[in-house]
């Protein structure tokens, strides 16, 4: 079936478009969708996929959106797509609506769809996928799975995908299972040949081999962070399953199985415990770190809420702990499979009483790896919890990223540890003595020395020799020292990165984490229309001096984030004593990935209204 539209209105594009797959979850579509994105990448064209999925295993709508961009843009473009692969009758209407005028609809026309169910300003391509699959396969599961591959073959023919690249991917995926490879190749060509035989090149958006991918890798942030934990020397992982963080702990288990099994004894240089709840997870992390192992947990907002009391203990008793928070939409259960940056405030000030914590905020898988490893050095150096703030968008979507790098001369920084030799040499040990003036005391591991260096760790107040004390002076000195330590952290965490506009401007934008590709592209688009903004990507809390300087340097600074309250803005106002009037809140918090369209529109609108005022 091919609806006639004026060919003049058809979208024409090579290597710059958005394709969206609408599926039912549990239908096996995910692997075929991933093959699509990887094929484009293998053709040397940048492709960035995003999974939009429900908190459900089978039967509910799910989408897979791929931004194809030879120019290298990684962000979600906007709310529309150029080609919709509509495989889910449940969402048919909204899927049809989201196609750009002049765009394309690809669907399975095995079952008749009434003419009034289409739009007349799009090109409709019907392919009898189910029919072909049912004719070729007996087994219901095979019919389902191969239908997806037949569809991929049809798309390959329509868009000009390199079928050889897809076949190579089959070979890699089903290594050693030649029968499976052959069956997939057959299904692929079934779809491909059908299009070539029955249709006359109806789609005018194409993928053409290019060379824009380079040596970049295609990986998700959770996997990258788990690898960071391996390189950061983590040996203990205690975790409780929660979307969207589970794949981080599972990734750690996978890498440990490959990289951390002692070859001689076949025994593990790691311990991973799936706990009964998040309280036990953080409790084990704290116990292990107290005892000198590098330990972490991975969780999301609800887990952070549960861990609050323990986080306060680690802060006050000064025990390292690394917590990966893969943020999702809150509050409460919120939207478990949707992305947000809404735990910034709760992590920065986690637990009751006066507390302040170190946050590292990666923008992509490369930084997930880098900060994932760094977090362990910082936690040991500062003897305090360190949060790595991912979000679902970074954590669960594969995207192009610089290849991981490691400096082989780098040693794990275990911080200030007093050893048996130090104690034997007569070095004075007071667990909470600020001997170096940086607020960081020395610690001993349990079991170090028969008669020296033992101390009692507690969540109650104590003096500098770790003796229980309710003296106001002891308490206050300790709390002041903790503040000094937090200030020391400012110089150890990754600095914010500034990008100056081509022309001088009164306006700055502060942003962080997964907002970065949308912001980068929006900045280019705004500049093309004569709007210039300086950018500052914050990568950590506490804030370095460069953050305050950037704000001071601009008349207005927009703070762009993915939560309702403008949490980072509040943190900036509170910690740097900034006049709230000069920090303009811009928020995007519907749970969908932030788009270039949103950022461009909102900043140009804000600036024009400010200039008009």
């Amino acid at each position, binding site marked *: 079936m091919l609806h006639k539209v004026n060919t003049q209105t058809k979208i024409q594009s090579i290597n710059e478009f958005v394709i969206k797959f609408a599926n039912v979850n549990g239908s096996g579509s995910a692997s075929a969708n991933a093959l699509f994105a990887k094929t484009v990448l293998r053709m040397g064209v940048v492709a960035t996929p995003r999974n939009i999925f429900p908190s459900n295993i089978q039967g509910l709508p799910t989408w897979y959106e791929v931004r194809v961009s030879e120019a290298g843009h990684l962000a979600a473009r906007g709310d529309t797509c150029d080609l919709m692969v509509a495989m889910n009758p449940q969402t048919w209407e909204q899927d049809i609506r989201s196609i750009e005028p002049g765009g394309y609809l690809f669907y399975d026309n095995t079952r008749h769809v009434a003419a009034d169910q289409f739009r007349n300003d799009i090109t409709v391509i019907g392919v009898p996928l189910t029919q072909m699959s049912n004719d070729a396969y007996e087994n219901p599961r095979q019919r389902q799975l191969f239908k997806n591959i037949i569809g991929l073959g049809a798309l390959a023919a329509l868009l000009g995908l390199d079928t050889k690249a897809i076949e190579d991917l089959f070979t890699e995926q089903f290594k050693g299972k030649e029968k499976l490879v052959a069956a997939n190749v057959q299904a692929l060509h079934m779809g491909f040949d059908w299009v070539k035989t029955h249709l006359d090149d109806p789609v005018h958006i194409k993928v053409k081999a290019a060379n824009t991918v380079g*040596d970049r890798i295609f*990986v998700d942030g959770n996997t990258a962070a788990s690898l960071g934990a*391996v*390189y950061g*020397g983590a*040996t*203990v992982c205690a975790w409780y399953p929660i979307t969207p963080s589970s794949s981080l702990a599972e990734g750690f288990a996978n890498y440990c199985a490959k*990289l951390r099994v*002692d070859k001689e*004894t076949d*025994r*593990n*240089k790691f*311990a*991973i*415990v799936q*706990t*009964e*709840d998040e*309280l*036990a*997870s953080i*409790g*084990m992390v*704290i*116990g*292990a*770190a*107290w*005892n*000198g*192992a590098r*330990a972490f947990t991975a969780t999301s907002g609800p887990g952070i809420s549960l861990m609050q*009391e*323990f986080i306060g*203990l680690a802060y006050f008793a000064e025990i390292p702990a690394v917590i990966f928070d893969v943020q999702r939409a809150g509050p409460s259960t919120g939207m478990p499979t949707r992305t947000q940056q809404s735990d910034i405030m709760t992590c920065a000030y986690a637990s009751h009483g006066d507390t302040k914590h170190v946050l590292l905020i990666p923008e992509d898988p490369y930084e997930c790896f880098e900060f994932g490893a760094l977090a362990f050095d910082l936690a040991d150096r500062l003897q305090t919890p360190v949060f790595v703030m991912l979000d679902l968008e970074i954590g669960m979507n594969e995207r192009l990223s610089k*290849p*991981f*790098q*490691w400096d082989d001369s*780098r*040693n*794990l920084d275990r911080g200030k540890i007093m050893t048996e030799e130090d104690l034997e040499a007569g070095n004075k040990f007071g667990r909470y003595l600020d001997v170096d003036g940086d607020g960081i005391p020395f610690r001993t*591991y*349990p*079991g*170090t*020395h*028969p*008669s020296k260096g*033992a*101390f*009692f*760790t*507690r*969540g*109650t107040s104590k003096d500098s020799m770790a*003796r*229980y*004390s309710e003296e106001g002076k002891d308490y206050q000195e300790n709390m002041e020292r903790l503040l000094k330590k937090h200030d020391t952290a400012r110089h150890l965490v990754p600095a914010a990165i500034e990008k100056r506009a081509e022309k001088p401007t009164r306006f700055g934008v502060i942003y962080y984490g997964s907002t970065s590709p949308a912001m980068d592209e929006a900045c280019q688009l705004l500049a093309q229309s004569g709007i210039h903004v300086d950018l500052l990507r914050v990568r950590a809390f506490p804030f370095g001096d460069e953050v305050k300087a950037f704000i001071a340097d601009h008349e207005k600074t927009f703070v762009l984030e993915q939560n309702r309250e403008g949490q980072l803005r509040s943190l900036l106002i509170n910690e740097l004593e900034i006049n709230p009037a000069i920090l303009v809140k811009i928020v995007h918090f519907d749970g969908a990935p932030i788009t270039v369209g949103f950022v461009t529109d909102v900043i140009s609108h804000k600036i024009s209204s400010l200039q008009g005022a």
Partner: protein
Amino acid sequence: MTFMAKPKFHHPQLQKNALGYTRRDYEGPVSTLCAGCGHDSISAAIIRAVYELDLPPHRIAKLSGIGCSSKTPTYFLGASHGFNSVHGRMPSVLTGANLANKDLIYLGISGDGDSASIGLGQFAHSVRRGVNMVYIVANNGVYGLTKGQFSATSDKGAKSKRGALNKDEAIDLVGMALQLGATFVGRSFSGDKDQLVPLIKAALNHKGAAFIDCLSPCVAFNNHDGSTKSFDYIREHNEALNSLDFITGRQEITVEYKPGTVETVTQHDGSRLRLRKIADDYDVHDRIAALSYMQQRAAHGEIVTGLLYVDPEPQDLHAHLNTIEQPLNSLGTHALVPGQTALDKINAAFR
């Protein structure tokens, strides 16, 4: 005053153990618990057990939660690292510590509020994981630090000091420990040193999850008429109770008294306690029989004490996790960080 150091001087003739330590070397600062508190007797029993076992004090890590019981680690083993964590969460902290260094001995001290109420989940899960530890609950059936509320081990029908009647069923930690796979389970009394010290010694020698429910009277809030956990009377009659002779890791206990003897202890406030020593036909290696026996005797209002169950071949969490012999906390950069060559291969797999 919040901290009281003990005077350092002591009798020059104090007996030394095989390591050359006196019993004083295993003590801590002065206890701030109420005079006569059962918990102090448990501390003393721990000191004696560790001294007599010739254990180097710094090779023990003592961990606790929150409450009167959890304060006690301050008062024993002053040369050991201690960790007073958060309420009900000692088991997870201990588990983590154990994962980091399997070579230390882990002594977890908790109370009935800490383990049977807020920490019931962590108690259960640490036991079922088989963490190599000695987990002692100083059980007095009452919240002491908050002044006398019922705890979850208070017996149904017990009266509080203020006269309130407990209508909730009691949680039986021994029954749970047996059911959840603890490989060493005992119950004892803070006042019965002869029984408690050998039991602790045996537990310290056990390479798996060892649990001891130690009834320990609260002299301030649960020592009155109508209480089922007031033990002044038992302390007064301690010599009348059976005690364990000597236990090593895998040896069954030896009982001084005739097997099957039941003692009914009527306390000065009128409450009664019946104690049953382990019968000669009682098999300490039969978990199911132990559970059944405990419940049968409990139905008769008796409390069975002693070593209740021991698995002579326990497997601990490290065995389940197949960790290397060397403690994880001793591994350095070379052992842990795979380096750029491995990373190149990983990068290649993502292209």
